[in-house]
């Protein structure tokens, strides 16, 4: 055992630990120059596995300096050696805290700092002069570093890049941004090692390749951490299911049982699926237990940083009885005192529920337990199904993103700013990433033209140029373009957000601009657990004052409707199949039995081999309900496809709704269902033509373009100090999309919008597989007189897509001005 390793072991021993075998494996592999991926449950020592490795390296290289103790002076600390990338700004501070301990105890004179959007300007200025030895940062801030002209020198002694929570990043465009940034870092500093930290997911091999690039510079390995704790999943079952409105949501009717469950433990986290649910449950708990004021809190990503810090600190110290939270608390360091986790609403996926369950039971010998609270009676079936999924080890995969050209365009400008690039060299580098391994020559050429001349269609516009070629190198010369690019690098995640602030008082957090846009002065809403009255919007802020009463709308945030995972959907179909044969094992199934019996007597419970279609006529028109049970995204695609195929038989207008169980097509006149089925409504053939055509009929691609436009720099966030000239360059991405579709329909960004809807939104491969399954299924058509339980949630769903084969004029003649309240 080397001297440095002995000192590390001593430090472990002081804390009553000894290094795990997987930690030693990582340290040894790192020492040999290898890169890799570590997967383990949260709170099992992943961070130390990655972090101690470069510390050991330094101790070996500096045997004498290591004898010194105490904090080093920042300006004399070694140059940047470790980059630690974290997906959430919120995690940076915690991670830093955890990393500081061994450094101080081992007397290593390193400086450790975070750099995120939250970092104070003074610290950023200091970092512009000199980076710390270890920098904890986000993918966006890493891209910003790469846009600096002196980036080569900055990374001169970089040894290690760690990507924390890689499973969270890799299925997203931020993951691609990270892939490109890592490729850049490796090009600047070929000896650098890369280690990823991940929860256990279904496709770890793919995660490793995505992290390291197709080339795999050194040996690479997947290191498996400590076995996860045993997980218990149970439910709070409504006492008399029959008396609950199976038609709609239970709302907070389960509150008494939830309060009991919270009281059973010392400290609880109540997870919800949306930020608005968080606000609703927080209000409900506080109203029922006013004496808990100060002991309960809420936590979601839109709240002000300071509020979130206070809450996390409270959890760590065991000061808080209960925190109501969204996925903002899914990740990160441990809250050891937490001994009770509740999940309000559908678990949505096996991995997700496991992750949340893992937030409890960190005390020795404890098990992880998560208690599901249905917000809709049918969700009890999902709880039974998720338990099956856990037992079968059916953990979901994260599908990496393929060739997002908007991210590539952004990266080209970043590289042009960061010292410039030579086209062939950068192409080789970009193709070395998993995301762009299949980048075609014409796509690369287009991206290059897009940032230089604006693309082939724009050659008549010499006034446009973001990047220029100077002696074989592509660089940015225009300072205004540089400034705007740096401002928009960080916007991949964020939709247009607006700060909420008291007229005379502090900021409370941010909400989506679309929510505030619907507000009128005097309107009330609840945010950050406080009843507020909207006063006005000025200077990019929504100004509010305290409202006396709490009745008011709760902000709805976009992107919060996570679909049911494929794994969970399959387990759900099996559970329904069992129910159709009279098998109601487990308390959850027993509890929903009366409702499923109503479903069976009014219509039918589909087996695994059936497709149930219900036709119902109501005051609103003619409803067709299809139940493939494949998750909301697939259903959105099927709804568009079915509506399109039927509308080709004769002029008809549909509005569609989708949820995790099925989809609804609603039309003023009866749809020719039988004709359509005979004509191949469910056929998996012609998908390549029919799916894009059905997408064009909806607005899905237009909406998807929002993100593409933002990432590729077609729209940029409002600049705080922008003058009139900048404001005149603002247009909605929808308008820009329309201009492209009309005047440059072959633009790759437009094709990308379609591709993203297909691949990411509608999970097209899943869509194809679903159709193959449905084409083989026995179609069961029922015509219930009233809407049966499975269809009811669709009936009341208000978010709708539309497809029509009638003329707009004909349609408009039957329409009226919408009621004001519907206008949102």
């Amino acid at each position, binding site marked *: 055992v080397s001297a440095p390793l002995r000192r590390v072991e001593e430090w472990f021993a002081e804390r009553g630990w000894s290094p795990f075998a997987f930690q030693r494996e990582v340290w040894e592999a790192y020492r040999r120059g290898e890169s890799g991926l570590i997967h383990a449950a949260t709170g099992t020592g992943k961070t130390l596995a990655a972090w101690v490795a470069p510390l050991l390296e330094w101790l070996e290289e500096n045997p004498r300096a290591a004898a010194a103790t105490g904090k080093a002076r920042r300006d004399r600390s070694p140059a940047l050696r470790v980059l630690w990338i974290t997906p959430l700004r919120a995690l940076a501070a915690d991670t830093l805290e955890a990393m500081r301990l061994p450094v101080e105890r081992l007397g290593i004179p390193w400086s450790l700092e975070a750099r995120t959007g939250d970092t104070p300007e003074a610290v950023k200025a200091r970092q512009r002069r000199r980076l710390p030895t270890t920098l904890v940062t986000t993918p966006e801030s890493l891209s910003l570093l790469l846009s600096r002209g002196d980036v080569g020198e900055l990374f001169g002694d970089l040894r290690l890049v760690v990507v924390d929570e890689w499973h969270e990043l890799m299925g997203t465009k931020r993951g691609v941004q990270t892939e490109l940034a890592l490729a850049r870092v490796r090009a600047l500093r070929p000896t650098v090692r890369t280690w990823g930290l991940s929860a256990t997911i279904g496709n770890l091999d793919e995660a490793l390749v995505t992290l390291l690039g197709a080339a795999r510079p050194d040996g690479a390995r997947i290191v498996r951490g400590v076995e996860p704790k045993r997980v218990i999943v149970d439910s709070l079952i409504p006492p008399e299911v029959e008396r609950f409105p199976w038609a709609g949501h239970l709302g907070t009717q389960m509150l008494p049982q939830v309060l009991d469950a919270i009281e059973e433990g010392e400290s609880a986290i109540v997870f919800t699926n949306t930020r608005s649910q968080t606000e609703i449950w927080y209000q409900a708990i506080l109203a029922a237990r006013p004496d808990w004021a100060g002991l309960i809190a809420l936590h979601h990503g839109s709240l002000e940083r300071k509020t979130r810090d206070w809450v996390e600190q409270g959890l760590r110290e065991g000061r808080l009885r209960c925190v109501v939270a969204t996925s903002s608390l899914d990740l990160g360091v441990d809250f050891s005192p937490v001994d009770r986790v509740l999940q309000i609403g559908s678990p949505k996926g096996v991995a997700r529920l496991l992750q949340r369950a893992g937030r409890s039971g960190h005390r020795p010998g404890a098990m992880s337990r998560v208690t599901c609270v249905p917000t809709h009676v049918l969700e009890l079936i999902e709880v039974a199904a998720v338990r099956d999924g856990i037992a079968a080890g059916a953990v979901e995969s994260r599908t990496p993103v393929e060739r997002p050209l908007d991210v590539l365009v952004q990266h080209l400008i970043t590289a042009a700013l960061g010292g410039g690039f030579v086209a062939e060299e950068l192409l080789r580098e970009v193709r070395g990433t998993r995301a762009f391994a299949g980048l075609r020559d014409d796509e690369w050429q287009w991206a290059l033209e897009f940032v230089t001349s604006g693309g082939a*269609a724009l050659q008549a516009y010499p006034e446009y140029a973001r990047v220029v070629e100077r002696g074989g190198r592509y660089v940015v010369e225009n300072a205004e373009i540089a400034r705007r690019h740096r401002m928009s690098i960080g916007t991949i995640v964020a939709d247009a957000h607006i700060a909420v602030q008291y007229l005379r008082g502090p900021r409370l957090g941010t909400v989506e601009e679309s929510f505030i846009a619907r507000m009128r002065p005097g309107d009330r809403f609840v945010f950050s657990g406080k009843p507020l009255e909207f006063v006005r919007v000025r200077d990019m802020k929504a100004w509010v004052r305290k409202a006396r009463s709490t009745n008011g709308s709760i902000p709805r945030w976009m992107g919060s409707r996570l679909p049911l995972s494929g794994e969970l959907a399959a387990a759900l179909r099996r559970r329904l199949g069992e129910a159709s044969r009279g098998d109601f094992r487990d308390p959850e199934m027993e509890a929903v039995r009366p409702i499923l019996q109503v479903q069976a007597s009014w219509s039918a419970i589909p087996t695994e081999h059936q497709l149930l279609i219900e036709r119902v006529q109501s005051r609103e028109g003619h409803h067709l309900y299809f139940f493939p049970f494949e998750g909301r995204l697939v259903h959105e695609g099927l709804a568009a496809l079915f509506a399109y195929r039927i509308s080709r038989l004769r002029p008809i207008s549909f509005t569609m709704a989708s949820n995790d169980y099925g989809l609804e097509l609603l039309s003023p006149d009866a749809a020719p269902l039988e004709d359509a089925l005979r004509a191949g409504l469910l056929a998996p053939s012609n998908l390549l033509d029919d799916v894009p055509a059905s997408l064009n009929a909806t607005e899905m691609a237009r909406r998807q373009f929002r993100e593409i436009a933002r990432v590729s720099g077609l729209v940029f966030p409002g600049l705080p100090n922008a003058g009139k000239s900048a404001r005149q360059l603002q247009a909605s991405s929808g*308008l820009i999309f329309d201009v492209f579709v009309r005047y440059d329909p072959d633009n790759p960004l437009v094709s990308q919008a379609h591709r993203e809807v297909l691949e990411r939104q509608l999970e097209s491969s899943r869509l194809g597989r679903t159709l193959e399954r449905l084409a083989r299924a026995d179609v069961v058509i029922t015509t219930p007189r009233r809407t049966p339980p499975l269809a009811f949630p669709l009936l009341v769903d208000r978010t709708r897509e539309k497809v029509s084969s009638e003329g707009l004029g004909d349609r408009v003649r039957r329409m009226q001005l*919408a009621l004001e309240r519907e*206008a949102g």
Partner: protein
Amino acid sequence: VIGSGDTSLQAAGELLLLLPERGVFWPAAATLFVADTHWGKAAAFRAGGVPLPPGTTLNGLSRLEALVERTRARRLVFLGDFLHAVEGRTPSVLKRLAEWRARHELVDMVLVRGNHDRRAGDPPPEVGIRCVDAPLLEPPFALAHHPPSGQAPYFLAGHLHPGVRLSGPGRQRERLACFWVTPRGVVLPAFGEFTGMADVRAGPGDRVFVAAGGAVVEVQPRAQAR
């Protein structure tokens, strides 16, 4: 002169035609009104580093050309926001404007200046459009960009880019540009295609006409369900 999709409107004792091409025609004076053309908007974006394909201004001008020919207007009044921004006064935009103007030599053209015109500047003199500040009084009408407040004469104006949301059977919904007809005047929809919309709240006594599928259609407020 009246097309099958046009809708007539009695306003201040005069007959006006609301046109599906998003203009208003006043037959008695052979005058065509359009608002908010925002010529050169995409060019201004390009100049600012936002790559948009060309074609919006050219297409808008040919739409306007077709409209002038269809109505046989002798006069064309732009109700403000003629050019979008000073950055959009590119040689190609100005050239297209001049060529277009030359094809309609006999049509008298007036611009009632709006907020964008103040920064973007008047069209160059060779385009031959007379520019005046609002309101331009043409009894019985007051022509303006921003809808005037107070008891002005009956106004024709733009600026708001009015739009409405519609709903129909089977939960059908649409959002469309509209003519907003109030007891005090008419707000025209924006003529330029690369322009947005703002929802208007039609009060009692207001009428709303949408341009849909080649026709101007009046839409009714829904009876308050209660």
